């Protein structure tokens, strides 16, 4: 899917209640516009709906509008969640509107000021261990909140982890491809959506997609933590490596430990990350609480 073609001025014209609509930045398949609503800063996300040729489809053959459904799901998930480490939904509800021959969708979220982990790493290099522990603890709280609602995020990656300038906390963004273990319709065709390089081993087999649980998200958190403390992806061996090769590595290769890449990483934290990256679900942490306990132990040991 391509990004919507709409400017800040055009968005402001479509939604007159929006003030100070700023320059957008791309966020996955969406454009994210900073703006104000009743004086409060928000992020308005805009994405394209799928286009169907109405002349050649009937109600029976009309395919599911996956993008609309995902946006709806993202909004519903965030509305149901109550965590400082997930963005809050704003006052502009999910709205479909026509623009330049396209059907677009818009909704608002809490505006989070700060860099994402990808930008942080590019700018300042690997995080210190205490900072990585903070990141892990915040994001696992967000994962636990999603899991409380029987959902897994499935798209945890550095670009989806933001650090709030306000208090330094980390926020898990974009649960748009979250998998609802009760309702699997969005992946009914067998394709498990993911960002290249960020997929749990058990998700590589579409036939078994419904067997996944929160431990898939813990695997993805493991990849992000590995990158956070080493600056490198655990399963990417070279620049421009194909996604298929990376998946093969995810399925078969044990990465070099974080400590072997960077001596500042403690043995305990290195082992924790490697445990998150275990191929077998039963070898990872069995719950978010168990991971939090392990993080506390490492924090206690280093202080």
């Amino acid at each position, binding site marked *: 899917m391509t990004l919507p073609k709409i400017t800040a001025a055009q968005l402001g014209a479509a939604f007159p209640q929006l003030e100070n609509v700023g320059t957008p930045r791309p966020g996955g398949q969406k454009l994210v516009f900073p703006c104000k609503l009743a004086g409060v800063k928000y992020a308005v996300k805009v994405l394209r709906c799928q286009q169907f040729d109405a002349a050649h489809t009937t109600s029976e053959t009309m395919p599911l509008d996956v993008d609309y459904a995902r946006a709806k799901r993202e909004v519903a998930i965030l509305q149901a969640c109550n965590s400082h480490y997930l963005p809050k939904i704003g006052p502009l509800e999910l709205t479909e509107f026509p623009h330049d021959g396209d059907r677009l969708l818009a909704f608002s979220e809490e505006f989070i000021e700060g860099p994402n982990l990808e930008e942080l790493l590019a700018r300042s290099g690997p995080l210190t261990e205490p900072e990585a522990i903070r990141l892990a603890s915040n994001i696992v709280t967000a994962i636990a909140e999603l899991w409380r609602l029987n959902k897994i995020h499935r798209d945890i990656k550095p670009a989806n982890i933001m650090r709030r300038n306000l208090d330094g906390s980390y926020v898990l963004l974009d649960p748009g491809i979250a998998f609802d273990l009760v309702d699997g319709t969005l992946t009914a065709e067998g394709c498990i959506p993911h960002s290249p390089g960020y997929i749990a081993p058990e998700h590589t087999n579409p036939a078994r997609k419904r*067997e996944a*649980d929160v431990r898939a998200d813990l695997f993805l958190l493991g990849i992000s933590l590995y990158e956070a403390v080493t600056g490198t992806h655990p399963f990417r061996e070279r620049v421009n490596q194909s996604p298929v090769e990376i998946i093969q590595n995810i399925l078969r290769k044990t990465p070099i430990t974080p400590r072997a890449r960077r001596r500042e990483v403690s043995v305990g934290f290195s082992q924790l990350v*490697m445990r998150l990256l275990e191929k*077998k679900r*039963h070898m990872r942490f069995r*719950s978010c609480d168990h991971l939090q306990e392990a993080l506390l132990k490492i924090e206690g040991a280093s202080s």
Partner: protein
Amino acid sequence: MTFLVQHGYGKSDKIERALDECGASGVIYAPRSETPDSLAAYIDKLSRKPRCAIQLVDPQFYATTVPNGNMGKLIEYPYFRPDLSVRNFRAPRDITQMVGATLEFQRRLAVTHLCSPTIAIDAFNDRWSSIALNLASESIGFAAVMGDGRPLLVSLLIHEQALRSQEQLEEFLDELTDLECHGFYIVIRHEGGGFSQLLDPASVNGLLYAIHVLSEVNEFEVYVGYSDFISPLLHAAGATATASGWNNGLRRFSFARFEPQAGGRRAKPRYSSRPLLNFIPITPEFDAIAALRLTNAVISGTSYDRGFRSGTPSMLGWDDTTSALHHWQVLVRLISDTIAAGDTVGRLAHIEARISEAIELYRRLDRARIPFEVAAGPGHLSAWGAGLREFRAQVEREG
């Protein structure tokens, strides 16, 4: 280290003596061998004994699928329904009813742990395996609503052959480790009623791996029933507690004793040898060992067996109760020695060395032309050793 007495028919004062004299820490009860009232009264009585730290009831619900089975007192229990087949487990409301009745019954007892009902798993990919998981999940949900507060153990009855398929076992462990229970009560089912310590290497490896994953990796408590002489190996892999009883039927689980023609010969008097990791029949084997002045090599060194050092074993009046108490003391010492060896790697190395020593001792006895009946021989040791080495290599690979 926790060793539990596996309760069954004919307890007399053996359990209390095991708690007082042998280092046992509790009991796993078999409703089949006790009426509901006497079971409740006995559990209540032992709950006042400080040494009896753990009491749990194996609901023995799994016996329901034995057709026309010899259920003993089990049919007097309000939760037990005989002769159920797969169709009785299809409706979720039926599962809920079975689970509810089983846990409600235990709620009224002075047990320390609640134990979920289960049915026998022959292979991890068969329909019974799914039913067992449904019973487990439903039990967890029911226990949470019940709000009893006592820890819930999910019980599992697994056929030894099922443990041979590493891939299926791993997938099953993916499911088990997703359960939000306190721990597991695991029983391994063997085929036929014959007694021996034998378990093939792949099954040993599978069992050790399952215990390791559940206990050491995922921090569940793991209780293994009917485990007898293999108990030290299971503790080496991380088992929380193991158990054994006073007769063969309480030391190795099979469905034979639930079958209509159950019953059998009384076992010959036997001596549990710590160095051999097996029993020695008093006659003719131990008499022959004593005649060749090799007693010191096989003696266990417990408070019960001093007479063996100088006398002829068959003349010592070695009765069943003393034999049982001696057996438990031997197991407790074997387990303590294993635990004292430290972490998983240390414990595995310790028990591997004990197995090698036992094999060597059997060779020495063979060279001295001591005859052993098959079940008392060394056949199990090489299988345990091979399974243990396979498991140890796997643990070391995982770091």
